[in-house]
């Protein structure tokens, strides 16, 4: 099981701030994870419609979509950042 946390409009569209998910073995990279989540329902589909813009963090560090997520205990999924 891995804890996934969502922020901003990704959180609103999926309609939950976090969840624990059992990932299939076929999910290797951050990009695989986004593609898998997108199949879980309408909210996920709406949140992850354009996966290229979505950012992923593994254990609170940014990762690229082609990086593996093995060893993750927490994965953050969120839109481009707009702080400052």
């Amino acid at each position, binding site marked *: 099981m891995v804890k996934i*946390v969502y*922020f901003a409009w990704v959180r609103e569209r999926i309609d939950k701030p976090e969840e624990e998910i059992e990932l299939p073995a076929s999910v290797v990279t951050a990009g695989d994870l986004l593609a898998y989540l997108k199949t879980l329902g309408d909210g996920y589909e709406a949140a992850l419609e354009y996966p290229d813009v979505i950012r992923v963090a593994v254990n*609170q560090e940014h990762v690229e979509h082609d990086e593996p997520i093995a060893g993750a205990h927490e994965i*953050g999924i*969120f*839109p*481009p*950042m707009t*702080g400052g």
Partner: protein
Amino acid sequence: MTRPTPTIRVQSDDFDLQSEIDVLTDGRTDIGAIVSFVGLCRGEQNTLSALELEHYPGMAEAEMQRIAGLAIERFDLMGLTAVHRYGKIAPGENIVLVIAASPHRQAAFDGANFVMDFLKTSAPFWKKEHGVDGQPRDWVAAKDADDSARDKWS
């Protein structure tokens, strides 16, 4: 030379520029330049009642710490403070503070600029607009110009 430890905070409360500068310079006579940046909430021609700042607790602090470390290393800063607020912030109120200290002005200017450019593009904060009717509106969209500003440092 020992690198200074940056002061990093993510908080809902406001901050006070002068007291943050005082903490950074307290008892020191080797600092020759302090550059500070304060980012405020704009009212957007009175169409906005507030910006609501969401953050990723833990990662926001960690990312600010990482960016601060890069700036201290690259510009040989003598001190660095970065404070970012979260929650609802009304037009005219403070959102973010960066203070860079160095022996001479150029490093302090560059250090503060560098920290802001990276903070905007990689620290996990998001802004949502609230209209004058008090209702939540759209999330602020990320700007390509912010990516370009960051990329000038690479």
